[in-house]
């Protein structure tokens, strides 16, 4: 038979007359939750940004022809030395073509697969950028600019010009910013490039590319697939790489294995390619949660301590309440509700403080060469974190209040009254 208005009234009076202790306890929760929100939003924001940095540009499955030695050397085919121990020195890689055989039908086949969002062809080749008598080595990749922009966020890394400009310009080139600086080129200029097998082709610069990785920007340029095919003097079925993007990244591993088996190609899935990257993300998350939970546990102990002291101070009150007809459960509820009020108020303030801090961090400028699209510190303000933070505040104060209030429930009023 709980009588909430009376219980809450007593709890309120206790809390208000001990306002210093109450606010200390509530502040413990406030800082715990505030720090949790700030940390989690900031850390997951950073994680998300770093994830995007890799995931956006990286295909889920990268299909290509690997240059590698034959797995079976000729000697193993020879039956007469079957029983003996063979040593083969100076194994050379097998001579194979760079291009993917039947690339266009394979792309068509992959795009028909339901889990595949798209399969984009690329041609990678080595070239020289020619500036007068100086030849700078570099990579030229032939792409479908519009598709790359819409599916692999290529547009984020084009600092001048646009993907459309590349698509629409015959003999256009999207030049790496590093090369442009070295050669003092600007958009609209022409740059001469030369493939390994000779010849010089002037290409018109339609834009600059900046990935954020300086070494890459100093060599990498992009152009249309057709342009590369023309430079290399190859037919229009010459494709060296296929980048596959899936709807569900978790299927990358199984599909890549299937592609390897089916087409006798190398298919590298994103998880294998970026294994150490995932480890970093996991560890950062781990640290975030370890720190936040430690903060909240410390706050919980603070509440536990203060309630314990309060109950010792209020022994007489407890005895008198019990003598005048309040049951042990009522007394327990009085102290539980005090803990919960502290948790509620502290938690709510914590959410506000957390929100404030996160909003503040969100406005702090954070400019770095590596991330051309980021202007302020990245923040992931997920409502779920606020829900978790508040639930944890209520949960920890419940635990912290439960033990002392249980003690209050068990206090024998006769002992207190006779003890004086």
């Amino acid at each position, binding site marked *: 038979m709980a*009588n909430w208005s*009376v219980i809450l009234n007593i709890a309120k009076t206790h809390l208000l007359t001990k306002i210093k202790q109450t606010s200390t306890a509530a502040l413990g929760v406030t800082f715990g939750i505030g720090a949790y929100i700030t940390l989690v939003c900031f850390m997951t924001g950073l994680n998300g940004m770093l994830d995007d940095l890799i995931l956006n540009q990286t295909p889920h499955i990268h299909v290509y022809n690997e240059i590698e030695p034959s797995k079976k050397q000729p000697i193993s085919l020879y039956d007469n030395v079957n029983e003996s121990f063979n040593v083969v020195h100076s194994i050379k890689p097998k001579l194979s073509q760079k291009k993917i055989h039947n690339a266009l039908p394979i792309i068509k086949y992959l795009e028909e697969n339901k889990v595949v969002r798209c399969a984009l062809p690329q041609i990678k080749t080595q070239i020289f950028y020619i500036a007068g008598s100086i030849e700078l080595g570099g990579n030229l990749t032939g792409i479908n600019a519009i598709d790359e922009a819409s599916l692999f966020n290529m547009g984020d890394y084009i600092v001048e010009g646009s993907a459309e400009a590349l698509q629409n310009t015959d003999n256009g080139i999207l030049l790496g910013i590093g090369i442009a600086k070295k050669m003092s080129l600007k958009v609209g200029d022409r740059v001469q490039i030369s493939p390994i097998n000779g010849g010089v082709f002037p290409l018109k610069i339609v834009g600059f590319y900046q990935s954020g990785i300086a070494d890459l920007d100093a060599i990498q340029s992009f152009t249309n697939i057709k342009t590369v095919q023309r430079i290399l003097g190859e037919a229009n079925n010459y494709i060296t790489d296929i980048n596959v993007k899936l709807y569900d990244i978790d299927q990358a591993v199984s599909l890549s294995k299937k592609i390897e088996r089916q087409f006798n190609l190398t298919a590298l899935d994103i998880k294998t390619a970026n294994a150490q990257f995932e480890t970093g993300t996991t560890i950062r998350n781990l640290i975030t949660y370890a720190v936040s939970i430690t903060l909240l546990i410390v706050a919980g102990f603070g509440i536990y301590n203060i309630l314990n002291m309060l109950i010792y101070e209020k022994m007489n009150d407890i005895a008198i309440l019990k003598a005048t007809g309040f049951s042990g459960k009522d007394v327990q509820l009085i102290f539980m509700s005090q803990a919960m009020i502290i948790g509620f108020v502290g938690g709510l303030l914590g959410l506000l403080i957390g929100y404030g801090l996160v909003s503040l961090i969100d406005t702090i400028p954070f400019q770095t060469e590596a991330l051309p699209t980021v202007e302020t510190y990245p923040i992931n303000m997920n409502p779920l974190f606020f829900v978790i933070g508040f639930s944890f505040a209520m949960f920890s104060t419940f635990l912290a209040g439960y033990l002392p209030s249980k003690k209050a429930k068990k206090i024998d009023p*006769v002992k207190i009254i006779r003890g004086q």
Partner: protein
Amino acid sequence: MSIVLEAKHINKYFKKPVMFHVLKDINFQIKKGEFVSIMGKSGCGKSTLLYILSTMDTDYEGELFLNNKLITNQSREHLSYLRNKHIGFVFQFHYLLSEFSVLENVMLPAKKLAKKSHQEIEHDAMEKLKMLNIDHLALKRASRISGGEKQRVAIARALINNPSIIMGDEPTGNLDSHNAENVFNIFERLSNEQGLSLLVVTHDGDFAKKTDRIIQMEDGKIMT
């Protein structure tokens, strides 16, 4: 006259530090409107008996009846309810909730009982305070009033639910003779005018003499 409180063959042992037989076969009745005092030397078990009768101590043998209903072995929840509804307490040390106002202290048991609206309870509480001539203190904090006044507030609180019986554990033990007299007069008036039963443990012979009946205790037994 109807019997308010009846004890049958009450036995109580203290088990710690050594086995000790505190109350030995206690039998008595208190009728409606009776003003009874329990006297005896320190350690004779009179307070122990009072706390058993008050239902706060449940560790005893025998049977206890309140308004002719057996209350031995009832659940703690129900005993709390009975204390709230039927028993009023006045202690030697006034035992008010020091952070609440006088009025709130008096109202608290009635709020717990929750039989009446807030306004009615407040009205009742003011009535009780007026009856005891302390209505001018109603809004003062309980920690800011004198000892004699505190004891009268405690009496008002004991009366708020119109209980069947009021129990006092040395209610005048901590008061000077003037205030003790005052408290006695209040008790007597309640007994005579309102037909309230009172059971008071006391050391004070003068106080006891003026009551309707004295229960004399010695070594855990009732002598008279």
